[in-house]
């Protein structure tokens, strides 16, 4: 298995963990029942962030994106964008929770859209995982 695939699997698994624990509070709008949800999200967000940065640098440096063509490339790009969006909204929420070493005071209009944006990013990440899985897994197509 090449490094590209390992990184993609890492991204998929980390995102999946974050999505699973976030479904209750963000999508269903109920109190999280999994203990330590906050800590799980923080740890896997760090892992996801590191894998994402390493993945992007690796892909650009080695031009591995060239092996994808047409719809596959489109699916790959959208999948990566959705993970970037998930990381971005995680940073915005983490800005206030003391997760980051320094916090930035954002305008109230941005503060009021943080949680809806996070919810949308979780949905996008689900779609992104589906697309990335289609890039990695090639179902055998009998003719």
């Amino acid at each position: 298995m090449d490094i590209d695939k390992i990184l993609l699997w890492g991204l998929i698994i980390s995102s999946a963990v974050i999505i699973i624990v976030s479904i209750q509070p963000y999508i269903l709008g109920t109190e999280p029942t999994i203990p330590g949800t906050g800590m799980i999200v923080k740890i896997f967000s760090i892992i996801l962030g590191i894998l994402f940065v390493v993945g992007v640098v690796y892909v650009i440096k080695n031009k591995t994106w060239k092996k994808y063509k047409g719809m596959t490339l489109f699916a790959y790009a959208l999948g990566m964008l959705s993970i970037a969006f998930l990381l971005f909204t995680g940073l915005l929420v983490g800005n206030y929770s003391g997760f980051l070493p320094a916090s930035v005071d954002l305008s109230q209009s941005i503060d009021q859209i943080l949680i809806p944006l996070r919810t949308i990013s979780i949905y996008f990440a689900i779609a992104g995982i589906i697309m990335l899985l289609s890039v990695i897994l090639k179902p055998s197509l009998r003719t």
Partner: protein
Amino acid sequence: MTKSLLIDLSKCTGCRSCTVACKSWNKLEPRIENRNQDEIRKAVEKAKGTDKFSDNEFTYIHEKDIRNFYKRQCMHCDDPQCVKNCPTHAIVKYDNGAVVVDKEKCEGVGLCAQVCPFGVPVMGEDKKPVKCTLCYDRITQNPVLEPACVKACPSKALKFGDIDEMKQYASKYKYVYGGGVNDSYNSSVIYASNIPFEEIDFKVAEVHNIANVLDAIKHPVGVLSILGGAALVGLKIYGDRKKKVQEGEK
């Protein structure tokens, strides 16, 4: 039954009995355990009464000048931004109208303090939000009891009761804010005044429309994105199969 707190600004004298009663009921004395003399002095100074929300002030009298002032506190909104924006669902809007923070569920994210249209919740020393609870513990303990501030008000400027009764009372006044009266903001706290609110430097709600729009579309957009992703994958599989068939035919 939804209750409402009505603040009759024509009767308020700014005596601050409400703030004292609030501190007494909620035990907002300065913390002195495990503190040295200097820290205790600072804590007592801080708790003396300020013109802003803090660990020791769930409500205060906001003064524009000696004649124009009003009691500032949590509005206990009908559609609270703090409730919607709490990632841990630690803040609840109860049926009786009170919006209360459950400190055990709270993880101290602090978004509630940022999104409140009235700038009410502040993060306390324990890094959890503090604000008026509408004396939730009092009013649920005994339906006859009213919030401590209402009980203490000597000029009867504060009234507590069924929201429809309070709205009816408020409708006699020229200027009303809250309770959804005259299409004003929907909340359990109602201000009634015979002078314009601008004259007392009253802070109205700042709810940004884009937040309401995003909140309304988040689930439909999300579901559509998942369906779109699945459709894209379906198209990709179809394309791959077509290519394979064509290669097989060749």
